[in-house]
């Protein structure tokens, strides 16, 4: 029996992830030596274990050494900063990943800022975000870059494209808006104070949703044929008592109207870890250009 046909309206992340990881693996094989990724977890945070495992797996798949560090939850801010600065100076550290959440005594923004922009593969420091604003989009925040990657996947021409972002978070909405604008899209950013989100989303060629409200966007808010990128991750309890993950978009309903919709789970999520790996090889290229690596 044949496998059931894949619904062509669903923008699945897996093939995109696999393609990017293959490209990264080719690059890693082509260079004589490459440094390691360091994952830093401060304190005992069981909820990040799954993320670290995914990152470690992706790193292994592309051939990047992955060093999992677990720092004591009592480690002082200054000590954390010092250790990060040592990594900045260590040519064998290719990139640093700071896992969140961190203990309450840690100022996470200050630690993110301490990571050198050329090693900030998560694209989170103010300098990295500023580079995005100035159209240098090589090392973008992973989730924002994943959303952009899925939009590219539709084949829609970004020049003159009407894009509506719902949600103006610092790490997703705003950087993604800047990246799409750099490619020629006309971007409107909506948020909790927007009078009518529907008025905007209904005229959009592409709607990107990153709010964190289950099924906020229904079929009546979408123009026929539009692409809908769902970045929300919400835990819900179904009627039968089981717990599941849904996005900000009512995928089943929207599928009947939209040209493309990214499912949750399985849409943007899987791409993010591949973008992290791609950022790592961009970091390698940038560090080489900066003369940091003598190979």
């Amino acid at each position, binding site marked *: 029996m044949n496998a059931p046909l894949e619904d062509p309206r669903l923008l699945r992340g897996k093939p995109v992830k696999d393609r990017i990881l293959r490209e990264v693996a080719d690059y890693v094989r082509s260079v004589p030596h490459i440094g390691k990724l360091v994952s830093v977890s401060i304190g005992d945070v069981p909820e990040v274990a799954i993320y670290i495992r995914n990152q470690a797996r992706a790193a292994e798949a592309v051939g990047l050494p992955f060093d999992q560090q677990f720092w004591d939850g009592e480690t002082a801010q200054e000590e954390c900063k010092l250790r990060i600065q040592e990594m900045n100076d260590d040519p064998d550290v290719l990139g640093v990943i700071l896992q969140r959440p961190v203990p309450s005594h840690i100022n996470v*923004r200050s630690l993110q800022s301490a990571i050198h922009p050329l090693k900030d593969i998560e694209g989170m*420091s*103010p*300098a*990295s*975000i*500023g*580079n*995005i*604003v*100035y*159209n240098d989009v090589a090392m973008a925040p992973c989730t924002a870059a994943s959303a952009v990657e899925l939009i590219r996947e539709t084949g829609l021409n970004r*020049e*003159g494209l*009407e894009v509506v972002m719902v949600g*103006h978070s*610092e790490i997703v909405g*705003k*950087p993604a*808006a*800047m990246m799409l*604008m750099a490619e*020629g*899209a*006309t*971007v*409107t*950013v*909506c*948020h909790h*104070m*927007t*009078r009518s989100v529907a008025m*905007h989303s209904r005229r959009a060629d592409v709607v990107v949703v990153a709010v964190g409200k289950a099924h906020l966007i229904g079929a009546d808010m979408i123009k026929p044929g539009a692409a809908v990128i769902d970045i929300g991750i919400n835990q819900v309890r179904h009627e039968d008592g089981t717990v599941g993950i849904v996005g900000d978009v009512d995928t089943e309903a929207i599928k009947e109207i939209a040209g493309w919709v990214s499912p949750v789970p399985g849409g943007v999520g899987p791409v993010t870890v591949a973008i992290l790996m791609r950022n790592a090889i961009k970091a390698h290229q940038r560090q080489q250009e900066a003369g940091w690596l003598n190979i």
Partner: protein
Amino acid sequence: MGANIIDGKAFATNVRRQIANQVQRLRDDHGITPGLAVILVGEDPASEVYVAAKHKQTIEVGMSSFEHKLSADTSQEDLYALIDQLNSDPAVHGILCQFPVPDHLSERDIVARIDPAKDVDGLSVVNAGLLTSGEKGLVSCTPLGCLMLLRDQLGNMSGKEAVVIGRSNLFGKPMAQLLLQENCTVTIAHSRTADLPAVARRADILVAAVGRAEMVNGNWIKPGATVIDVGITRIPHPEKPGKSKLLGDVAYHEALDVAAAVTPVPGGVGPMTIACLLANTLTACQRANGLEEIKDLTA
């Protein structure tokens, strides 16, 4: 006809008066004088005029003004050495390098060399990132000036539709971020936008920064909108031979019939820029000394 004309010149005078009062207070209470250092490389006549205007207004509000005029063949090393020295000089709270600079120097690298806490032009990637992240930084002067005019005109901007025409690093992008911070719904439109007039007509707040004379017609403007005109184009004067005239991006007389309020060109946004440079210098000084900053003068 019906629209309120936003008098940027008078507003800028008020801002400078407010800054002068704060400078006086800093001196009286803490013995601190804010200082602004301006670097000019080469002899561009227009730049000399700007630098002279900045110097004059810096002195007028009671700040210290440090002018550094370097010859056009100044090497990158010498320029960086000066910037490093100003970065570590506690009497200097703001540093700006007047652009354009000669071709052998990189504007981007010069900005990157300036301590972000002293980057009173708000142009460094770090300050651009801080603004995007909603964190405290220094904001580019012209958008900050527009924000002050809008706050004065409209008060609470929450939920308003804002459209910024132009996506430059210097203006359009930071302006959009500031309007988002005020909880406007923001669209950035530009040369690639499919239907620019239709997008503009949605706007309760329309900000034009393209540099194309009178591109925004009256029928691009929603009745009752507030229109901020940042464009400046110099054309030969239609009646006086040999003289020139300044035009904005907005067809001013048409806008007056439709909008609720409009900034004229000249005399609208223009005068706010140096006032905001001084505001940023004051803010940088207050932050450097751990003192409270003035809300009205910052983003």
